[in-house]
């Protein structure tokens, strides 16, 4: 039976570096190629030697598909393509293709800045890798090769995020990447066809959570910022260049406008412009509200948010600053943090996840004294707040997507084992389908039962009807006989005659022959007559004829007699029959082997 194999190299029972291998219909596809920011050695990348030891990934992989620009989904891409070696196509949506290199560059710079970093890709490698990228449009089927096709669907989550359907023949898999089933300030909700894939590979970050409404979180965020500003404090919001930052900017901009607030809001230099550029360019990927109002006013052209300069950090009075990087581990955000940390009036709001070892991680976990530059200690007096704005589907959303796509099997990735196990039970109970949650390195094999659609010729159906069969009924399958023509990517069942005619072939007849040796001291002609008489007497009711060309015919069976000059009494009887008379033919040969009755 054909099967589909899924092996996560990353994101199997964890939220780390997403990298999932799928083998379907003889094709091998890599879904996402992410990095783990928690390591600073080779462990940050998936171990590609499990795919092939010889480093020639091109030989093994038919294509790579990247779901969105977050580094845990694309961060290992230049390493894989340029350092390990992959020359085949890499698919991602247009916005992802545009934004991905910016984030990779951003991370490369931070990484190079760090000590002890080894084996990291260069700027040139990022560019060379991006040259291998083939952009995808939503809902457009792309033919990777003659058999493999892919199609992207809107996933929400971040600008350009896509779910992707992979199809080989009648077998298919859908990979969701990260998705969000509820629209937010700038993006819409994920959507997919009722495409009934064999497997739906879905993220499960919030597998057990029913999240409070986004509005509540937004209110909470604004309240905290407002309170801090009111008491004259400064608010630092460490962010990554693109993504959540834009959502929070829209939020603050609207709030400032509504409340007529005067405190300045700043954004790290160079980033707003670049980000705005992409949001304008890919306006069709944002939500309906932004698209609608775009004609009157572009949401991303901010009135209150200005570019930040290093010297502003020392300005007196309240202010809000968005600064990179998001985990407070280097650069501007860390520099501002150091300046503001000692004042309890100030506040830092961490809007996302921070890896172990970063200042962000430490302060989120309540550390109040930080060791800086190997010796000095920084006292953290400012208020530390954590506000999750990451846009993932919650348990309800995941179930909603399953109802939308109606898959035959589910496979959970990108989540924690315990929570996955809970969701797995829930899915199996509610939908009565198998749900898998392989760990990294574990292969899940799902047997498929591919139905291959075949067109049937009208003549064949008519003939079937003439024989008195029931009318065709899709609910009651039955067997049909005919000749299968596989031509020009189509399969058709037709009558054998029609097949011969269409293909310009002539019919061939298959005949069996057999020689029987007889001791018969007569002339050849006499022996043939004796055979004729014998058969006539044995095979009553069969057409036995003695033909003028010295042959005897029984139905389609032809008999001839010959002998050699050396041994005239040893007769060789040659029998030949077509396969329809197989039984009669073997009966005759057995009969003649017994010899002719002497009485003849």
């Amino acid at each position, binding site marked *: 039976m054909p099967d589909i194999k899924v092996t996560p190299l990353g994101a199997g029972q964890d*939220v*780390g570096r997403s990298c999932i291998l799928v083998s379907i219909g*003889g094709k091998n596809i890599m879904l996402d190629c992410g990095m*783990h920011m*928690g*390591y*600073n050695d080779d*462990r940050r990348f998936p171990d590609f030697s*499990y795919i092939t030891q010889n480093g020639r990934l*091109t030989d093994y992989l038919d294509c790579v598909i990247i779901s969105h620009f*977050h*580094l*845990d989904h694309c961060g290992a891409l230049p390493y894989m393509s340029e350092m390990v070696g992959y*020359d085949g196509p890499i698919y991602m949506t247009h916005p992802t293709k545009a934004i991905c290199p910016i984030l990779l560059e951003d991370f490369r710079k931070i990484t190079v*800045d*760090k*000590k*002890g970093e080894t084996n990291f890709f260069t*700027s040139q490698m990022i*560019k*060379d890798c991006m*040259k*291998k990228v083939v952009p995808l449009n939503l809902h457009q089927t792309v033919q990777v090769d003659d058999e493999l096709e892919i199609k992207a669907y809107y996933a929400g989550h971040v600008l350009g995020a896509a779910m992707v359907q992979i199809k080989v023949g009648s077998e298919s898999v859908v990979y969701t990447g*990260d998705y969000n089933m509820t629209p937010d300030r700038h993006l819409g909700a994920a959507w997919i066809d009722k495409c009934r894939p064999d497997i739906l590979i879905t993220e499960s970050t919030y597998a057990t959570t029913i999240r409070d409404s986004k509005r509540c979180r937004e209110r909470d965020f604004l309240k905290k910022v407002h309170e801090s500003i009111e008491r004259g404090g400064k608010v630092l919001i460490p962010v990554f260049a693109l*993504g959540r930052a834009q959502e929070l900017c829209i939020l603050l901009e609207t709030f400032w406008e509504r409340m007529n607030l005067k405190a300045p809001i700043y954004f790290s230099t*160079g980033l707003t412009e*670049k980000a705005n550029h992409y949001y304008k360019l890919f306006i069709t990927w944002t939500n309906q509200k932004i698209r609608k109002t775009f004609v009157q006013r572009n949401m991303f052209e901010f009135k209150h948010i200005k570019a930040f300069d*290093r*010297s502003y950090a*020392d300005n007196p009075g309240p202010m809000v600053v968005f600064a990179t990087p998001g985990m*407070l*581990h*280097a*650069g501007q955000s*860390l520099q501002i943090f150091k300046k503001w940390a000692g004042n309890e009036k100030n506040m830092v709001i961490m809007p*996302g*996840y921070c*890896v*172990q*070892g*970063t*200042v962000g991680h*430490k302060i*989120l*976990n309540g550390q109040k004294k930080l060791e*800086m*530059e*190997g*010796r000095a200690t920084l006292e953290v007096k400012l208020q530390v707040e*954590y506000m*999750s704005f*990451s846009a993932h589907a919650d348990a309800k959303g995941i179930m909603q997507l399953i109802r939308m796509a109606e898959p035959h099997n589910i496979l959970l990735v990108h989540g924690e*084992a315990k929570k996955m196990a809970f969701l797995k039970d829930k899915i199996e109970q509610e939908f009565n389908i198998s749900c898998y949650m*392989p*760990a*990294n*390195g*574990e*292969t*899940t094999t799902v047997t498929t039962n591919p139905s291959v659609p075949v067109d049937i010729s009208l003549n064949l159906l008519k003939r079937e009807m003439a024989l008195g069969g029931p009318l065709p009924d899709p609910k009651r399958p039955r067997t049909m006989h005919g000749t299968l023509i596989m031509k020009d990517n189509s399969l058709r069942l037709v009558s054998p005659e029609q097949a011969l005619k269409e293909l310009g072939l002539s019919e061939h007849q298959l005949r069996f022959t057999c020689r029987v040796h007889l001791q018969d001291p007569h002339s050849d002609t006499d022996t043939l007559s004796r055979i004729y008489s014998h058969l006539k007497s044995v095979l009553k009711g069969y057409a036995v004829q003695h033909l003028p060309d010295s042959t005897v015919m029984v139905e389609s069976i032809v008999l001839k007699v010959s002998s050699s000059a050396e041994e005239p009494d040893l007769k060789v009887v040659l029998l030949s029959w077509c396969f329809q008379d197989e039984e009669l033919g073997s009966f005759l040969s057995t009969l003649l082997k017994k010899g002719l009755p002497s009485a003849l």
Partner: protein
Amino acid sequence: MDSECLSLLPSVCEVLADSKLLPPDDTSLEKLLDWFKDLTSQDDGQSLLQHQPCLLQFLYSVMESEVVDPIIFSFSLKLAGLLAAEESGFCLLQEKGVLVSMFVPDGWHVLGLWKNASVRCGWLQGLWNMLQHPPAMDFFCRNGIITLVLNLQNDESLFITSLTNQILAHILNCSMPRVLGNDTDSTAEGQALVSSDWVSVTTEIMSHMSRSLASEDQAVILPGLRLLAIVLTQCGDPLKRLLWKHVLEPLEVLAIRKGDSLTPPMMAVLQAAARTPLYIQPECRVEALMNVMLYSRNTNESVLCAASILLLEKCVSIRLIGSAVISLLRICIGHYPSTILQVGNFPHLIGCCKIQRCGLDVLGSLTVYEESMDLIQEAFAIILQYMQSPDSHATVLKKAHQAALKWFSICSPSTDLWRFVSNDLFSVLKKHVCDGRWEVRDSTLEFIAQLTSALKGNSEYTEALHTNGMISVLFTALSDVEAYVQASAVAALGEALTTTNLPLCTSLQEEIVSHLLTVLAQDAESFPRRAALKVFTSWLKIPQTFAALDQSLSSVFSLGGNDCDWEVKIHTLELADVLMEKSLSHCPYAVQGYEPSERCTEQALNKLMDLGTLGLLFKCLFDCDRPVSQKACALLLKLRAFMKQTSHTDGNDLALEICRYNWGEEILHRYCSKRPEQSDCVSNDDEVSYEQIDIVKCDPCWPKEISLCKILDVLDLDEMQHTLSLSSDHVINSPRSLMEDILFVAHQSEDNVVDCY
């Protein structure tokens, strides 16, 4: 071990063993293991266990716990293995009964933990850590652990099967010399250690291998073949011979058996065997097996086999491969060589990017063989055809460029070659610089830059480049819409002007410099700005003078120093480095036997000052990006060393009006902190606040200028450099920070931990 870490370790062990607390994320546990690995490599496990009783306590509590988290359990297995990696640690753990409880099959894994892949992986990893010495091998062989390991060879997890194979190969490797009795190094004592358990384990592994290979089930055969390939690569010759005898029969059956998924691992085994002495022993039948594989399979698989066989060097003539590749490349582009009659068989090859890319790669790599020289004309012809074909995919064109560069690197200059370059190659490149795809434009510009650099100093090439309209094409590309392309155009143009021997007309120079300055001032994407600075630096390095550049240096330093991209700043500092080198080295040193010319030094320093170089260095010294401040610090140290060498110049003459600059504040701050006695305006506190600096700045009694020497002195550059080399690990890698994080996380609410992007 650091005493602070020592004091934290007991609490960390307690937190890890407490099943009510959240386990730390797996990266923290992995990093903790890294630290233990370092510790055990410095000091053996025994002393660690003796000095840190909490470790043993931790292992006990994990073993006894019925609700242990699989992640923690897996961690403890790996840890126990590490601690037992040395004999002494091993003996202690065995004495305490830890090893039997943790590693012997009858113990804990019935609890259901075994179902968890991370636990199985941890168990194997622990074994792998431990199996480094004979007592551990003894332990392994005596306790029947091998059965479980062999079972894991067919595990669902790739990670587990791969680790299992490594362990099995390791066991064979360790035990075989002793079992075979030809271990020349072993003493009589060592020999005595070879118990019947060792023999039975090795026999079991080998029988298991031949059984696996004889199986009907592909899932069983596959790991068997993988193990065989590992053994053939890693183990000693006697073992290989013995093993080969065991497996030859099933291999012969497998060679005739058809099945897609087995062909690559079979070929991997045969390739490995072909690289051992087994290859030349007729009874081993390695070559015969290859033959069977090659001829008994369908086209696709035969190609795979053929490819593997070709990888074994020197088996086919390079000339033959070259001709075949060129023919294939011709077919792929739709040009059928007349020698190939059955043209109809290849329609699917036409336009097949995968084969085109691969073919061009091979074509390029042929250039390492001398025999390829005969193919040079054909090679260039086919490369040109690919470049000229309107259907060539961007990735294929890039491969064509790479192949062309390789062929250029081996060919000797000839009139034909230059005709080819100026007539054929340049005309197609000019078209590509205007291609609709940015990938093509960029690769073409990169190719031009690389070719120019490779043919540096070749006057025919330079002439062709400058007389063919190429320069104006490059100029146009500077205004490309894509930043990547602009940057490549800057680099190509820079290269073209660096390598030329032709006198450049001043107006062209001026035009280029002013264009690059515009790039520096206006570009928003950083790649072109970085490229522009690199070009300036390369121009400044060459002996000829670029008058236009010299006039613009101060603008370059000002723009580059104020850039928001730290790499642009780094490149600006590199430019400053070259300039400093150039201007200061013209001043003779005392060591060279001359009286150093005070005047010359002064002039040079004044020039650097006027061009804004010194300002740049001080500004960058306080940059928020470490590499920038580190580079600036290094340059200032260089400057200080120079000034010390020319010590009679006290530098007092060169004074900086620091209040004019925004970086001046930092210097003033340090100046005040260092020399509070000099000013009545500043209190005697250790720290000087910025508010106080403001007072200082306004105070008319304060000197507005500080001499360069004093500044360099006050800055304490050595200390700064030391700090900079320590810092910036803001992803703090110290074990102490790791342990603190583990302790803090354990008491956090769940929400903070689970979140991600």
